[in-house]
Every structure is written in C-alpha cells, then in structure tokens.
C-alpha cells in the first residue's frame, strides 16, 4: 500500500461536514492536502503541458508567423491533454484503498463530494496550467491582447475539462485499458470546449471581439457545473456496485 494512505483522515470523524457546501469544502480540502503532499504529481502534469507545447515548434518550424497562427490551438490541445493525463487518478487511488466506498456511503450527497473532488482536481492541475499559459503563449509570439484572452479562455474552459473528464474517470474506474479508453470517451465530448477556447484566442488575434466565444465557454461551464457532478456521482455508484 502507498504510504499516504495512513495519513488520510477518516471522513466519519475528522471535521464531519454538515450540509452540501460543507461537503464540497471538505472534499476540496482533503484532495488538495493529498495533492500537496505528493507535489511530484502536480509537477509532472505541469511539465507535461510545457513539453507538449515545446514539441510543436520542434516538429513544425520555428517561424514566427506560423507559430502565432498555431499557438492558440497548440496551447489548448496541450491543456486538454494535461487535464486528461491527471484525470485517471481522480478517483483511482480512492477506489483502490476503499476510501471511495466510504465517501459514497457517507450521509452527505455524493454529487457534492464529487464536485469537491473535481474542484480540487482543477485547482491542482488546471489552475497551474492557466498560470503558466501566458509564458508558453509568449513562446508562440502571442501579443498582450491575445495573452489576456488566452488566460481568460483557459480560466473558464479548463474547469469544464475537469467536469466532463470526471464522468469519464468514474466510468472507467478499475476497467481494462483505462487510460486509452478514458481518452476515447472524454475527448469527443470536450471538443466544443477546445473549439470555443482556441476560437476566442483566434478572434483576439484577428482583432475581433472574443466575447462570443468566451460567452459560449461560460455557458458550457454553467451547464457542466450543474450537470456533470450528478452524472459523475452516478458513474461512481455504477463503478462501486
């Protein structure tokens, strides 16, 4: 067994939450503390993102105009892949040591606990990517206006990736061919986020308003925040049965 298992608090006794918001807060705090205790995982996701972004100029050509044209798309695809990379661990460790079963049996609504876990996933893997994105954007020669829109689009869009991805992560719990299958399930569903996200930056580069794309991203986020935790919670129950 992994060493960090013993460090986990018992959900029944430690800071027992009373209410939906408290359950969300408890799940965020717990998952974040686990994430920060093994910082290598955070570093790996972020490094993976930077490496993927670096591969494209090496494989195409480091021409400035070309890089500026493909930059938004490359950065968004890299953010998508980085999110996917860490998704398989969203429920897997908890499922392996039985914690997930305890969480599902707790008197608090499972969707609330699951949304807390999703929020922690985004805070520990999505947010770092958003923060590093301007630097990678500079590598691709994006101007200040485009960089602002890039950060805004990633800030709205990457939570949607975590939310949709959580459904796939729960569905593929303990299933054969986990990682590849997860990609097959999740990537087609995440296409709209990619389109609107990269589209916003493209529009900014072309001197157009990015508000349409950002609004659509916001709509996707609103829909996903409301619906995805319930779908993911049902998927967790399916996996535990």
């Amino acid at each position, binding site marked *: 067994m992994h060493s960090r298992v013993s460090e986990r608090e018992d959900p029944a006794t430690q800071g027992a939450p009373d209410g939906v918001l408290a359950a969300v807060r408890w799940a965020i705090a717990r998952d974040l503390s686990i994430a920060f205790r093994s910082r290598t995982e955070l570093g790996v996701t972020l490094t993976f993102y930077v490496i993927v972004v670096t591969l494209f100029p090496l494989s195409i050509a480091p021409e400035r105009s070309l890089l500026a044209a493909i930059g938004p798309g490359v950065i968004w695809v890299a953010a998508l892949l980085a999110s996917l990379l860490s998704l398989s661990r969203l429920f897997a460790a908890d499922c392996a040591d039985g914690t997930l079963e305890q969480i599902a049996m707790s008197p608090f609504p499972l969707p609330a606990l699951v949304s807390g876990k999703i929020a922690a996933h985004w805070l520990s893997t999505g947010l770092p990517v958003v923060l590093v994105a301007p630097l990678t954007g500079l590598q691709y020669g994006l101007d200040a206006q485009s960089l602002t829109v890039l950060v805004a689009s990633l800030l709205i869009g990457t939570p949607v990736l975590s939310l949709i991805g959580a459904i796939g992560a729960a*569905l*593929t719990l303990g*299933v*054969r061919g986990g990682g590849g299958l997860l990609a097959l399930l999740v990537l087609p569903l995440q296409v709209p986020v990619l*389109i609107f996200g990269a*589209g916003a930056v493209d529009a900014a580069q072309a001197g157009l308003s990015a508000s349409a794309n950002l609004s659509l991203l916001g709509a996707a986020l609103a829909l996903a925040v409301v619906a995805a935790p319930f779908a993911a919670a049902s998927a967790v129950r399916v996996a535990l049965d």
Partner: protein
Amino acid sequence: MASRWFRFAAPSSFYPLAGKLVPPTAMAAAALAAIGLYVGFRVAPTDAQQGEVYRIIFIHVPAAWMSMFLYVVMAAWSAAALGFNTRLSAMMAQAIAPTGALMAFIALWTGALWGRPTWGTYWVWDARMTSELLLLFLFLGVIALRQAIDDARRADRACALLALVGVVNVPIIYFSVHWWNTLHQGASIRAGGATIETTMLVGMLLMTLAFWCYAIAVILVRVRAIIMERERSATWIAAQLPAQATS
C-alpha cells in the same frame, strides 16, 4: 392494454417476438433496397451540376440519417434502462451501438468518395463531416466501454450513462463545429439545386426505408444473440434451444 406491451420487456417473451420480426423486416429491407437502388441508378436523371457522381447520395444520406437517429434511439433505450432498470432496454442499447457505428462509418466513407470528384479532395473540415466523425467516436466509445467491463450489469449502466451524457453533447458538438467551421473557412460548396427531382426524392425515401428495415432486422438478430448469451442459465432458454435446432 399497457401490461400487454410491458410483457415484452421481459427477455423471455421478447426473444420469440424478435425472432418472428426478423424475417419480414429483413425481406422488406432487401426488397426496398432493390427498388430504391433501381430508382436511384436507372430511373433518376443525371444531375445537371454533378453528373453521375451524385448517385452516391442514395446510400450516403440514409446512412448519415440513420447514424444520428440510432444514437438518439440508443440514448432513449439507455434512459429506459436507467429509469426502469429493465435489462432488455440495456440489451437493445448494446445491440444498436455497432449498427450506429457502421452507419456513421458508411456515411463518412461514401462522403469521402463523393468529395473526391466533387470537391477535389477526400476530406474537408466541413461541419457536417466533422460532427459525423465525432459521432462515430461517440459510438466507438460506447462499444469500447462495453468491451472493457466484464460484469454485464455494470457495463449496462455505465454505457447507458455514457450514451446519455453523449446525447446531451451531440447538439453542442454539432453547433460548436458548425460555428467553428463558419469562423475558419467560408461556406463549403454545397450541392446547389433548390429543387430536387421527384424520382431522386423517391429513390432516397426508398433507400431510407430500406436502411430502417435493415437496421431493425440486424439489431433484432443481435439482441437475440445478446439475450441468448446473458440468459443462458435461464430455464426458458433451454426450452427455446431444441425448437431452434429443429426449425
């Protein structure tokens, strides 16, 4: 009245019903396809703009329609499987997925064959083609998830959830691809022709009905196989088997 219909929600009573429905639908599919192809290839006139190439639409368009329709039907059966917890609904959803994937593949393949002489390229990032490709991935995802889970009941519910999440996403995917397409490139060359020749329409309609009958027949055959596999320990299956062997 309702109870008479719900009777067929039990695999044991649906199995013989499906067996009775397969031959007529299969024959109807063959007959409709024969007439439809005759109308499409012999009766319908040559298109003024595209020449003979356009005739692939008699297969392309029904396949594309069926692929989208089958996804919605699969999602409806999935909703029934989750809502009523009926095993047969999940089996129907399982039986539909491969046919849906096949239809999406046929639509893409014939579209590529049509695009080469018409647009000069096998593939363009056209909104409809791209969303059809994503639909194929959604079908493949459901099939792959089914294959990856050993426990049939868990696979039923997991696939049903995935199909439902997918069906919420299908319109979003379609519109996002559509808007992306209009943002990135000008409107693609679309077959002009505001008016469509009656014989063309009749041919397309016949072929669509043929695809429907084919899909129903194949899905019923597949669902019978699934029922047989899943219920192999049930006593009624044992009663079915000798009758199957002698007939």
